[in-house]
């Protein structure tokens, strides 16, 4: 099975190729089915590879399959090669698994879209790129996928490009990511200039041999982290993610929640051997950025009305948790949270998509309410997601978040407190959203006056919310199941139940083992759960029970609603000056000064010509004077010369 590992990325690529050339002819819904089938097949292969690897031990668990030499030049030799080890296969499993579900979901969600087939073109390309990112055996193949997912993200965010906001959001995502990519590229150059290779194995061996200087390793780690910040929407390069919600919801679920945005975390985990030789401050930076982002995003999420924006900030916040985990050395916990988060966040996004779909493209949670009556399946599955993210046992989120908090507690109390506070906020804003959407009054039912105003045939009036078709709710159910039991892959009770930890052991993730057992552990878990419940309670009190408008307004300060005004700040500090500078360069410096100098030479010639021309008066005696003058000068020269000698 291991030999077939190349099929994992190849199948979605094949799907992409078929769809790009024949997608339109295949049409709806077969294009979607084909896309989903390809990803599904890829998932099956991944499962096969997984079991094959599982049956091996130690070194045997890492397998590299070289396909061909990609970039050979001078000392540089990069292969197109696939690295199958527990880390990459874990990632591949949930990427293809969740990918399949979301593809299926999208068949329903994208129903009737005029560019139905093209959606799956992009989606399959995305899955391929994501798999290249994960399975690449070198920094460069990883970078291939890294940029590929970025491009797909761009294409999918601006999928509905008729909307200017969607088009802008796509562009913003790509450009901001490029800032991060700059760091990533510099890191690669640095690594290559030191280690002479970009293959993970060689680089890490080089690192283990102690050949990296501490400074170089630190610089490389931090530069790679810059890339991770961009891709995983951390401070300060997160600004693209909330806007990315302009994309179709399956995209948000797959790319901007479950998979692509976790690439940064994957990268940080992957380069663990480098962190070992780097200054500890490098990891501190990672931890702090993660914790700050987690808290920062959570506060914003409390005041958002758009159902998807809440989830977007929540994603940022959860990703912050993962970086925190990496930063405090709990790589396994980071991966664990990545997996569980993929389950419940994909679930919630798809649920949100179902709600939006049922509500006829309404995204404002303030205009929803009591949807449990209209969309029971969506409600139930969303409920699971809500409990999971809020950290209520035994749902998946509890286990993974608890691991992270534990590691943070042991490493740095301040970080732990920040993470803990974030946990309260998480529980609060998710509950707020949950209550507003599924409970309370049906705010979308309009009074007679409004109906009269917008007309009886408006879709909002004519159609009630409805439950989504089975292609959409089946994936919801499946994800809900995963969100419910996903925590089981790494139970902290003893070494035996830490399945994920054991599985990942062969990949050198280093770090200290998470405390197994002990009062502290259970105590901390209890604190987390209780505080989570507090968050839920506050939300319940203000958003469902009292439903006091003034109190609600107080909980949504403008500063948070505007997301601290960071977009405006960036615009004022970077975009506007940049644009002014460019305009000055283009229209003043380039046109007037540089080109002006060029044209100026022509003008000088013309000016001189104009002056000289005046000498040509047309009068014979002036001409004779010219000759005589020349003669006199020549004679003067002659005499001077004679005089000198």
């Amino acid at each position, binding site marked *: 099975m291991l030999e077939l590992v190349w099929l994992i990325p190849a199948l979605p690529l094949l799907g992409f190729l078929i769809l790009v050339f024949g997608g339109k002819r295949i049409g709806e819904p077969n294009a979607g089915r084909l896309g989903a089938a390809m990803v599904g097949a890829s998932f099956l292969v991944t499962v096969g590879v997984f079991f094959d690897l599982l049956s091996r031990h130690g070194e045997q668990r890492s397998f590299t399959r070289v396909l*061909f*030499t*990609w*970039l*050979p*030049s*001078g*000392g*540089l*030799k990069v292969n*197109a090669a696939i690295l199958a080890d527990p880390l990459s296969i874990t990632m591949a499993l949930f990427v293809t698994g969740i990918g399949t579900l979301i593809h299926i979901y999208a068949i329903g969600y994208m129903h009737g879209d005029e*560019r139905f087939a*093209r959606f799956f073109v992009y989606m399959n390309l995305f899955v391929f790129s994501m798999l290249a990112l994960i399975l690449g055996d070198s920094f*460069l193949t990883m*970078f*291939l996928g*890294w*940029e*590929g997912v970025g*491009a797909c993200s*761009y*294409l999918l965010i*601006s999928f509905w*490009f*008729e909307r*200017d906001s*969607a*088009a*802008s959001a*796509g*562009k913003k995502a*790509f*450009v901001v990511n*490029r800032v991060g*990519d*700059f760091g990533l*590229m*510099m890191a*690669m*150059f*640095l690594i*290559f*200039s*030191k*280690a*002479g*290779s970009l293959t993970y194995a*060689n680089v890490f061996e080089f690192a283990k041999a102690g050949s990296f200087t501490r400074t170089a390793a630190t610089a490389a780690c931090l530069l790679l982290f810059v890339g991770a910040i961009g891709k995983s929407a951390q401070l300060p390069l997160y600004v693209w993610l909330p806007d990315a919600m302009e994309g179709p919801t399956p995209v948000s679920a797959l790319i901007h929640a479950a998979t692509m945005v976790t690439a940064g975390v994957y990268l940080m985990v992957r380069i663990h051997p480098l962190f070992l030789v780097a200054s500890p401050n490098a990891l501190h930076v990672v931890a702090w950025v993660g914790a700050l982002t987690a808290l920062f995003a959570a506060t914003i999420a409390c005041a958002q009305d758009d159902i998807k924006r809440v989830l977007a900030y929540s994603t940022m916040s959860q990703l912050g948790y993962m970086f925190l985990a990496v930063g405090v050395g709990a790589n396994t916990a980071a991966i664990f949270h990545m997996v569980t988060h993929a389950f419940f966040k994909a679930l919630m996004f798809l649920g949100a998509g179902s709600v939006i779909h049922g509500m006829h493209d309404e995204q404002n949670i303030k205009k929803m309410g009591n949807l449990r009556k209209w969309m029971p399946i969506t409600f139930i599955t969303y409920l699971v997601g809500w409990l999971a993210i809020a950290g209520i046992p035994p749902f998946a989120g509890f286990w993974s978040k608890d691991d992270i908090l534990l590691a943070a507690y042991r490493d740095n109390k301040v970080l732990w407190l920040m993470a803990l506070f974030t946990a309260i906020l998480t529980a609060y804003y998710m509950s707020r959203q949950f209550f507003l959407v599924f409970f309370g009054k049906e705010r979308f039912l309009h009074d007679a006056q409004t109906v009269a105003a917008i007309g009886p045939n408006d879709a909002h009036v004519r159609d009630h919310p409805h439950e989504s078709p089975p292609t959409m709710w089946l994936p919801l159910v499946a994800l809900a199941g995963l969100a419910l039991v996903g925590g089981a892959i790494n139970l902290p009770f003893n070494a035996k139940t830490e399945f994920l930890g054991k599985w990942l052991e062969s990949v050198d993730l280093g770090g200290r083992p998470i405390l197994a057992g002990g009062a502290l552990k259970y105590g901390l878990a209890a604190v987390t759960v209780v505080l989570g419940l507090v968050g839920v309670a506050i939300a319940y009190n203000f958003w469902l029970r009292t439903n006091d408008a003034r109190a609600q307004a107080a909980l949504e300060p403008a500063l948070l609603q505007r997301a601290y005004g960071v977009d405006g700040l960036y615009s004022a500090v970077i975009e506007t000056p*940049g*644009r002014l*500078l*460019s*305009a000055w*360069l*283009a*229209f003043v410096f*380039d046109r007037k000064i*540089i*080109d002006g100098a*060029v044209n100026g030479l022509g003008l000088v010639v013309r000016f001189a010509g104009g002056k000289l021309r005046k000498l040509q008066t047309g009068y014979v005696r002036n001409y004779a004077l010219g000759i005589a003058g020349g003669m006199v000068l020549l004679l003067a020269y002659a005499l001077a010369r004679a005089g000198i000698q």
Partner: protein
Amino acid sequence: MQPSVSFPILSALVLVPVIGAIVVALLPKSRAEIVKLVGLGFSLITAAMAGWMLVAFHKGEAGYQFVSKHAWIKTWGISWHLGVDGISLFLIVLTGLLFPIAIWGPDERRDIKAYIAWILVLEAGVMGVFLSLDLFLFFVFFEIVLVPMYFLIGGWGHENRVYAALKFFLYTMAGSAVMLVAMLTLVFLNKSHTGVMTFDLLELSKANLATSTARWLFLAFALAFAIKVPVFPLHTWLPDAHTEAPTAGSVVLAGVMLKMGTYGLLRFGMGLFPEASTWIAPAMLTLAVIGIIYGALVATVQSDLKRLVAYSSVAHLGFIIMGTYAFTTPSLTGGVIQMVNHGLSTGALFLLVGWIYERRHTRQISELKGLFKLAPVLGGVFLLVMFSSIGLPGLNGFVGEFLILIGTFASRRWWAVVAGTGVILAALYMLWAFQRTFHGEPDEVNRDHMHDLTLRERLSIAPLLMLIVFLGVYPKPVLERIEPSVKALLIHVENGSGTVESRVSSGVVESAE
């Protein structure tokens, strides 16, 4: 030995387009379609020969192949000396490829006979530039290409064509004027040492020059090439020429003619003046980096689509210059392959912009909107080419850019770092332009006049797209043909300069793995 020895393939590459031009000129004016087909036929024959040459090329050899040498003007030691090596090989192939596309792709209707004839003359000239191993011969071709291009811009261009054509001609000519003097100086200095007057590149590269003399001469050569490239701040002819040229002109101009400059710097700058090349490197690198950033920033705010692409060329060519003067195997190899890549992607971009212009009769970004909806194939192709242009891995542009940057980083770290930011800016201006042009809801005017690519258009751009993908995925065949020549050139530079070995092939880059 290869059978090519008997057939003068390289001379044929130059002469077939000339014959084509003469044949086209003799055809009756009324049969525009036949004229076009005949022109296409000749350019395809040339392309086929270039392709055959590519197949017959011995990889792994650094020297010149298929050499053809005949005395021309004996008195002055001038000969018809053609040869191809890894550095010129792909430029020849690119030339062979782009010309049929430039002839067939755009739907030019005005005075088609003269138009095709000039294009074929241009092709011969460009081939000659890349093949010449004799300085005089090179200069002849270098200058002669101005004539057909001048007519193409001036005769079939847009509103401001006369100004642009004149500027293009005079600017370039000014550069080569100084070069000619330097060339002659070199020849006579060589003559004074060896007693033989020769313009042969291979002979002259052995010339023993005083350091300061060589530097002065190099500066004169470099000026001519820098204008042609163009290197900041000598670039202002380029936006005008590109913008005003007809589509085919822009394609050829961007695709192959700019490479005459970079090629000249490699072949003649480094070949003849190795020490001076290393001496000037910091300045050239700095100008290259400025060009990268500057070109990108200025491109951002352009309102004319062609002008935008033109400024993007300034940025891209900056990368090539940087790779050239970083003096490492990857950076130089990257520079050479980037010449090809830029030819493919910018050529394709100009073709696409040309098609948009044919439909909408405007190049103003503000007048275009929502084209993706109206012309999905055009949009998709544009998208691919755009990604190639901004260096997305898996497409050709990345290969060159990456090799250049990684090579430069090894020898000139901080230049590479600053140049790297150009990658961000490239994404910015290209995506923004794409958004304004292709995204959004199309308005009435666009709806009425925009239609998708025709079969002819699809077929004519298909080879470019295939190469864009192929070179991105599997550049090895290209790299391994370029590399021996690049290495030989680096050794030449190393031997010639003596002082820079640490920079030229600094430890790690060459020895690792």
